[in-house]
């Protein structure tokens, strides 16, 4: 494990040196949200204290400069995802809004009675409920690809469920509850084979691996800034331009129009069409700073170090008695979900917190996955490149301690 490099990057995150009641923080809830490097916090501070202004409206210097910073972020995101053109990047409030935007438009445009939307059994609620609503509104039917006991997609079932009735496939890139990395390029190829369009929920993927939307071939790709070391309240929707052009607006208001009269309004071209109202200007600029930071760390190190952490944690946790891992896919991001015999995850979460170890205990907004594995909730430790082997040791010690306290 490359501890020295991880420690060097760890020092970029001020909150990770927090000491509470004599214990340093072990932050292992990175799948819920990641901590922020100083460069991101500094970028927000500088924008608010020295550069703040609205975008696309003012003719004065501050506004023009803010517009330039905002547009730079769009360009940074576009390169980050390897989009074919800048206009394919819609800046939203987060993954949830990105998915809702697409589902709402797809429901009006491409779905009607007899059509099917295909999702999977490992989706986050944010990639289930918008499609349920889209189906309710359009009369289409929602179909669900099952998962296997290891937490992988049942690809045979996927092939069976994919038919000419399938108009849209919405699938998670990396499962937040299980860590499973899905074979997106294959899924897209098969879906396109029957003429279905594909959205990829990339919320959990972008902090772990490089994403190339052209290589994946997907039609839409959604992620949130706050899971990528950036501010909350900003997110991204990549959309193939020819499809974005067809989608109706999601919200209407200022900045998304060409001309407005009381009789009618003509809408702006994408991406402006989907960016009604004053956006999260500072947060989007902060996202740009976060991506620049991630690029400076580099996915080569991130992937290797997180794989090392996951392997080390999996080995150590598996050795304990009375433990069951939930999600044991071959291809996994650094997410370790587990349950302890006779100890409810919420009690585990409380005891671990007392040890200074922050994990997630709950259903991870993925109740169907919990139902599939027959558990009310799981304990989830999720690692980022700034975690070190000490964090793994502290986790394992805290779990042992919890078994002792609650046993």
């Amino acid at each position: 494990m490359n501890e020295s490099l991880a420690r060097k990057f760890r020092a970029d995150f001020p909150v990770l040196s927090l000491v509470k009641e004599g214990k340093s923080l072990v932050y292992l809830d990175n799948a819920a949200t990641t901590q922020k490097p100083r460069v991101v916090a500094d970028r927000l501070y500088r924008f608010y204290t020295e550069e703040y202004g609205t975008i696309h409206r003012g003719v004065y210097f501050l506004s023009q400069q803010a517009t330039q910073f905002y547009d730079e972020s769009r360009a940074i995101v576009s390169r980050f995802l390897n989009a074919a053109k800048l206009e394919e990047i819609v800046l939203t409030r987060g993954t949830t809004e990105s998915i809702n935007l697409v589902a709402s438009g797809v429901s009006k445009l491409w779905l009607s009675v007899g059509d099917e939307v295909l999702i999977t059994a490992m989706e986050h609620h944010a990639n289930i409920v918008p499609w349920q609503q889209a189906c309710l509104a359009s009369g289409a039917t929602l179909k669900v690809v099952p998962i296997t006991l290891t937490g992988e997609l049942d690809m045979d079932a996927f092939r069976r469920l994919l038919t000419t009735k399938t108009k849209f496939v919405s699938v998670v890139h990396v499962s937040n509850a299980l860590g499973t990395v899905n074979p997106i390029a294959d899924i897209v190829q098969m879906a396109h084979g029957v003429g279905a369009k594909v959205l990829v929920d990339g919320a959990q993927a972008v902090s772990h691996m490089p994403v190339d939307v052209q290589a994946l071939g997907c039609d839409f790709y959604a992620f949130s800034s706050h899971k990528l070391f950036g501010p909350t309240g900003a997110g991204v929707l990549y959309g193939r331009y020819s499809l974005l052009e067809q989608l109706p607006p999601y919200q209407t208001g200022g900045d998304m129009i060409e001309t407005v009269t009381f009789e009618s309004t003509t809408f702006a071209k994408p991406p402006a069409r989907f960016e009604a109202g004053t956006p999260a200007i500072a947060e989007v600029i902060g996202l740009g700073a976060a991506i620049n930071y991630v690029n400076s760390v580099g996915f080569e190190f991130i992937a290797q170090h997180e794989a090392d952490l996951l392997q080390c944690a999996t080995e150590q946790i598996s050795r304990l008695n009375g433990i069951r891992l939930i999600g044991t896919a071959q291809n996994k991001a650094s997410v370790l979900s587990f349950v302890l015999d006779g100890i409810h995850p919420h009690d585990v979460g409380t005891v671990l917190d007392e040890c200074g170890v922050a994990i997630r205990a709950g259903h991870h907004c993925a109740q169907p996955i919990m139902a599939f594995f027959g558990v009310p909730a799981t304990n989830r430790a999720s690692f980022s490149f700034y975690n070190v082997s000490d964090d793994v040791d502290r986790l394992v010690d805290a779990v042992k301690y919890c078994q002792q306290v609650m046993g």
Partner: protein
Amino acid sequence: MSARLEQLYQETILDHNRNPRFFGEPAACTHKAHGKNPLCGDDYWVYLDVRDGVIEGVQFNGSGCAISKSSASMMSEAIKGKRLEDVIAKKDAFLTLLTQDEPVSDSEKSLLGKLIVFEGVKKYPVRVKCAALSWRALEAALLGDEAQAISTE
């Protein structure tokens, strides 16, 4: 164990979690209600057999964390054979114990008896709803809102 954690997971609480009393579903009951914490998944039914203003029978069934399960178990123990007005006073005193900053009064303390072990939950605001769940279900059962599932989120 830290003092705070010891206050939360007292031996009585752990004991009721390991061996919950009055656990299971009765063949018949006069009142019942469903209590659920959607965020953490605590999920219980509370069943009451009320005759002539007295709780003659009580049982609970379901799953959840140590705090919610021991709370339901100790609640059942505390209300069995008691008159409804005493049960309601106990319930009010218990919810006061969990939610008020000031220490409970002596009269409330005597009403609560062993239930005072849940005082430590106050220091864990996110866990208050776990301890309150079965009592809220009890409240709903007595009000006859059995169709309306209750939630303490």
